[in-house]
């Protein structure tokens, strides 16, 4: 599904990401982990188009998407959620999802037919999947943080993505909510065959839900493998688990 080869990025003299390669298959959850400053976010932002890599390629189903703007990458089937949630605060939960659906249908520039006249069923179905249908009418600006994360997930699912990019999906949430959200994500990914790439600080979440882990340290790949393999890797213990756990 997603195939990344030799990704590199420097800021000034700092090599934030050096030679990162990875693959994610449909229905698989890959966690990108590493201590602060390891290059996770930089890596992530190169995959979703917010940053242009200095070198390397990003392929989605074999198609080169390196350096395309985020909105184009989205149209190719990549949904994403943000570390700090980004939703449209003055729109209702339902309308937030409807915007993604309208955009997917390329009907954003409609000047006449009110959005309120749209059939709410598809958006409600998405909200139902993330357990937010009951709050569909509330404005996003007043939601609790955990609920906003769910809305983001619903928005990310609106264009039937093949790949989900989730930057710190559980940051800022209560521990119980974290597990619930990742369990939900895992279920949806397996049901629909969506590949999920996520960064995460919470090791419980990572080891419970990720199929594979990729450990970054100072911009380079340190280890890759199944959770139990990574957990047993002495290098990982040293730079990462050893120092922070």
């Amino acid at each position, binding site marked *: 599904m997603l195939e990344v080869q030799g990704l590199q990025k420097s800021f000034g003299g700092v090599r934030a990401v050096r030679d990162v390669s990875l693959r994610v298959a449909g229905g698989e959850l890959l966690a990108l982990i590493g201590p602060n400053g390891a290059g996770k976010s930089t890596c992530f932002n190169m995959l979703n188009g917010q940053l242009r890599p200095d070198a390397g390629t990003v392929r989605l189903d074999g198609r080169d998407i390196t350096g395309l703007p985020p*909105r184009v990458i*989205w149209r190719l089937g990549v949904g994403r959620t943000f570390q700090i949630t*980004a939703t449209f605060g*003055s729109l209702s939960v339902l309308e937030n999802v409807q915007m*993604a659906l309208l955009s997917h249908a390329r009907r*954003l520039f*409609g000047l006449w037919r009110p*959005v309120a006249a749209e059939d709410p069923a598809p958006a409600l179905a998405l909200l139902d999947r993330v357990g937010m249908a009951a709050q569909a009418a509330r404005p996003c*600006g007043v939601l609790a943080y955990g609920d906003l994360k769910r809305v983001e997930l619903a928005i990310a699912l609106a264009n039937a993505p093949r790949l989900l990019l989730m930057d710190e999906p559980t940051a800022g949430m209560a521990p119980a909510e974290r597990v619930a959200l990742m369990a939900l994500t895992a279920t949806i990914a397996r049901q629909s065959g969506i590949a999920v790439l996520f960064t995460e600080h919470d090791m419980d979440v990572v080891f419970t839900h990720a199929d594979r882990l990729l450990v970054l340290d100072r911009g380079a790949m340190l280890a890759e493998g199944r959770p139990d393999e990574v957990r047993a890797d002495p290098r990982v213990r040293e730079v990462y688990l050893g120092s922070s756990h």
Partner: protein
Amino acid sequence: MSHLLVQGLSGLASAASLFLVAAGLTVIFGVTRIVNFAHGSLYMLGAYLAYSLVTWLPRGHFPFWGGVVLAALLTGVIGVVVEVLVLRRIYKAPELFQLLATFGVVLVVQDLALAVWGPQDLLGPRAPGLRGAVDVLGERFPLYDLVLIGIGGVVLLLLWLLFQRTRFGVLVRAATADREMVGALGVNQRWLFTGVFFLGSALAGLGGALQVPRESVNLNMDLAIISEAFVVVVVGGLGSLPGAALAALLIGQLQAFGILVFPRITLVLVFLVMAVVLVVRPYGLLGKRPGGHAASVTLPEPPLAGLTGRGRAVVALALVLCVVLPPFLGDYALVVLSELAIAVLFAASLHFIMGPGGMASFGHAAYFGAGAYAAALLVKHAAAPMEVGLLAAPFAAGLVGLLFGFFCVRLSGVYSAMLTLAFAQIAWSTAFQWVEVTGGDNGILGVWPSAWAVPKLAYAYLSLALCLGGTWLLRRVIFAPMGYALRAQRDSALRAEAIGIDAFKVRWLAFALAAAFAGLAGALFAFGKGSVFPTTMAIPRSVDALLMVLLGGVQTLIGPVIGALAYTGLHEQLVRVTELWRAALGAIIIALVLFFPRGLAGFRRA
């Protein structure tokens, strides 16, 4: 060769004057983040005060220069009074509100100067001992201008020393770089801001005072200098003193040589340079992207609500009155009714980009004027009937909006507001200087409606139908996907991009759409008056539109309608009741910004 040298020197002289004014403006902006529209008024006050002092004091070197310096200091004190009474309370308010408040000060000062010094141009004495001219390679050059160049250089040097060598200067530079940081260091911001205002205002006053021996002192000095000072400050980079000096030199020379090379487009040239600079270097030649944190805290916008039962009833009643009432009104009332309708559409079109779009326009009059001129030119040069003019106007204004908007919608905040202002001034200068086509200052006369619409009653119905129809269409768009996309990119640019919304395209189209509706309003205005003048695109008209929108409140859809009615009605009444209507209007604007920052409709809601 000598001719060119003299041109260069007179360019330097105007650069020196411009620098004095722009330096004060840019220092004030750097520290307080306020774009001070009233800076031109301080310049004007400096000139008036110097005129009074110099004519009142005995003749001689010492009284003359003493009078000039005293005028500058007095202006500084006036600046402090304005800061303490008005601006200190709105440092955290949105930028547009600050701009508006300072424009309120402009209006008050205008009437104050009128009351004190009268409407006639005042010609002050020449500087003692500097009346003559010097010989520059065989050409004569005014001695006073030479002194002015020297003063400009000396002031630049003194300011540089002040900023490099004193604690106050270091604080000013630190605050310009990061205001919060200075606050966190325990510096008394109040004193710093007030001190900066004194310095900036005194510089403006000095600039004005030094003009007394060169030109007559009059009531138009404020807006004339402020648009030039804006250009200098924006081209140099907001907050950058070296930038202001560099830009003043550039603009001064551009004006001096522009007259030689392109005598017909001198006015346009200056704003064209500003537009080009802003497009290529959005933060000016030596400006930096504003550092630190956003100056104003933005609350999440409330969701847009459709009308509830009672609101619906009120609107329905108003519409019924619009249909039933006109036959019972006199001609004057019918004219006012047409103007109200035009104001509503004009305000609604600006609100469309400001409210849902979150974009500021300080030059919306450009599109109002574009529509008015398009209709008038068709009538004048192609003998087109009114109907064709009314149909063509929104397309013409929309095209102008597409052209200008292409550049404006890329920027945000003050920079975008300044670019819209620059484009509006380009439009205005074109109308003003392209005399063969537009008639220049004399305007285009004889732009009358078709025979059936000549009676005031018919014209009132026509205006009502088109303006209320246009306003309704805009409302329809706001509730359609386009309007939602517009609000989406305003709420979160990051999320909009992540779901495939091309924010630039959405903003651009919205800008053009707003321009088209403003153009329709402008054309109706032209046929209503029977004439078009460059003032239809001048700064005051852009401010009118802003006032209407902000008065009504940006957050609600009914806001611009209420704002347009309230403002136009207020204006009408004030002009009738008092000679000092500008001062009254200015005071009301200031009070409104201070006490109802969410607008009238917003207040009702809260």
